[in-house]
């Protein structure tokens, strides 16, 4: 027994030595830019963590296949150093520390979930190493003036931004907006942000009305809306509520020039249960496989979707696309900075203006991406991206219920 224990111990030590010798030998062969990433392999967030890991891996593979990263006259390859944060913020921030001080990574990729991103980003801030994250959307991450954190998930407040921008392209442009929203946290942020944006763009918010989550009776709100003759009706809520609003709007013959909803139009059930009444209704989404953007690492979104599905056997969702954008921004920013200096790269990231398969990436001064949500519309029983640069043109104005 004693002998067995000793053998096992020696074996373990040998294993440790081999593992520790291997790393520097590989690194010396080619010039490498190390990206550090502490993310959930195990624990409660591991499912979403995997989406980001798959995306990061695929993007890095693509960068290296396409000739790596050019810094001045040198060519570097990307390499990711991963650690498992066990879905625990304490563990995660400690591992980021390890990535910076022991593994000496050049830059950082983010973890999944806002609660873990914040402590991690504070470590990045202490060491002044830029971190790009695709997995935390909370405004809190960007509220403290941390210069070293950049996020590629759009804030809830910007959800309707592209819709409002689209309104400007119509002649005559609609002037009055009605906003209906459910009283949960997310929808509240959407509504607040939309109101501020609409007012900034010179539109008048004539109705700004909250309803209880899961409400079924919208008669009084809709009557008010009709009386105020709002041109545009924006709804931030859930599928059931979107269905009820649409049906009751038809019954009361409320017909603004445009109806758009956050949740509902993109779901097949919504279109099936409303049938013809769903026509012309607009929706928003931050990203979906139907979209088509010119890419930086990939030719376009559709090519990416095909390659991704072939590689991993599942359809990519917005988490994956966001992760791809993170790596793309790093490559672009490092090349523009022409240096691996963290400060120069940070400034280059802040100045990013890049077309990716996830959409156009540009950061707000606080580090969060400028709203990239796109406008969808139901046309002929199907949903299409109509703005910006969709497969179909937006159909406007909305023909009144009785005139169909």
């Amino acid at each position, binding site marked *: 027994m004693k002998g067995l224990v000793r053998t096992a111990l020696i074996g373990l030590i040998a294993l440790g030595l081999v593992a520790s010798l291997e790393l520097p030998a590989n690194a010396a062969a080619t010039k490498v830019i190390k990206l550090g990433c502490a993310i959930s392999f195990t624990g409660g967030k591991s499912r979403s963590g995997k989406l980001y890991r798959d995306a990061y891996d695929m993007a890095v593979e693509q960068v290296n296949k396409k000739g790596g990263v050019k810094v001045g006259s040198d060519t570097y390859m990307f390499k990711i150093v991963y650690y498992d944060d*066990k879905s625990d913020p304490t563990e995660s921030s400690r591992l980021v520390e390890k990535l910076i001080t022991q593994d000496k990574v050049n830059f950082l990729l983010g973890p999944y979930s806002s609660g873990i991103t914040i402590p991690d980003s504070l470590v990045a801030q202490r060491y002044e190493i830029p971190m790009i994250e695709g997995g935390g959307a909370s405004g809190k991450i960007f509220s403290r003036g941390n210069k070293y954190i950049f996020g590629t998930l759009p804030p809830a407040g910007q959800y309707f931004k592209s819709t409002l921008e689209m309104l400007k392209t119509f002649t005559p442009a609609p002037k009055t907006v009605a906003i209906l929203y459910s009283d949960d946290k997310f929808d509240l942020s959407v509504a607040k942000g939309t109101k501020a944006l609409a007012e900034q763009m010179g539109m008048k918010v004539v109705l700004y009305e909250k309803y209880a989550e899961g409400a079924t009776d919208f008669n009084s709100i809709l009557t008010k809306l009709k009386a105020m003759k709002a041109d545009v009706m924006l709804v931030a809520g859930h599928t059931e509520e979107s269905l009820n609003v649409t049906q009751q709007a038809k019954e009361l013959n409320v017909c603004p020039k445009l109806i758009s909803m956050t949740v509902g139009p993109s779901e097949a059930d919504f279109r099936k249960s409303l049938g013809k009444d769903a026509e012309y209704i607009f929706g928003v989404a931050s990203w979906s496989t139907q979209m088509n953007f010119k890419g930086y690492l990939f030719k376009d979104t559709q090519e990416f979707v095909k390659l991704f599905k072939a590689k991993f056997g599942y359809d990519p969702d917005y988490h994956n696309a966001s992760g791809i954008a993170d790596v793309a921004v790093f490559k672009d920013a490092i090349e523009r900075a022409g240096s691996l200096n963290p400060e120069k790269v940070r400034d280059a990231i802040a100045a990013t203006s890049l077309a990716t398969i996830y959409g156009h990436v540009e950061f707000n001064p606080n580090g969060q991406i400028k709203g990239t949500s796109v406008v969808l519309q139901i046309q002929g029983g199907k949903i299409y991206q109509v703005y910006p640069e969709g497969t179909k043109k937006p159909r406007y104005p909305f023909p009144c219920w009785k005139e169909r």
Partner: protein
Amino acid sequence: MRNHLLRNYLLCGVALLALTLVPLFCNNFIIRFATDILMFAIMASAWNLIGGYTGYASFGNVVFFGIGAYVTAVLMEKAGLNFFIAFLSAGMGAALFAILIGLPVLRLRGHYFAIATLGVAEAMKALVQNLEITEGNSGIYLPMMDLAVRKQYYFFFYMMLGTLVLTLIVTYILLNAKLGYSLIAIREDEDAANSVGINTTYAKTMAFALSGLFTGFCGSIYAYQQAFIKPGPAFTVHTTVKMIVMAVFGGMGKLFGPLLGAFSIEIISEFLSNYFLLAHTLFFGVVVILAIVFTPKGIIDMIIQKRFGLAYFLENIREHRV
């Protein structure tokens, strides 16, 4: 006997000195790692007071940690107070909470006590998630220390080390006083202890309050180091489980048991997750199970008895009929 004691004091002194010097020779990651180990050493030792000595298996000790963290965050961020004031209030707040909650809950025994404490921690989490002053579920920032990174880590390390030393000294004094004997009497047979005139309610509540005090201190330093806390992670039952596993692994009801447990568990876990990115939890579970089967009295028992051979393991297995 006297010589023996002297040697023990000397050993402790040398160990303490060695620990004090750690940060001077290591990189920031090691300092932070060491700080985390010290934190768990304190929490496991604090759990030992109620779980190891008194025999009340508390499954809700994380509640003191969370309270400590949130008291610190609210006092520093909302009231603009200095860290040391917040630190003391955090410990006191947690201790006070322990007394308030201990009076009803400590009447329960065995599984009932375990479940009740678990419930208290969950209830506290729900409360913090819905309060305005704690900024609800989205979490709360703390002011960051305005010092060079390295100096910050020195600060946190020495705060933790100081708290650990305090915890051990207080526990040591307590064990050699009447209260310590009362606690052990309660663990062995509470009714008998009661019948010989020991004020069991007082003794239990004191142990619980001290456990809360030290765990609250930990939460406070932790919050300041993290600079951001959320209700979910601050009140997670995982932390309690970790305290218990460390205390049991090292040796329950022994002064240095939990300390040893915290050091070995954290180092083993770090080693495993370094080399096995995915399977580390599996291996870690195996290590813990083997340790419990072969040395149910904790590894400190092995060291005290100076027996590392097969005979010791077999004896344990026979004795505990596993």
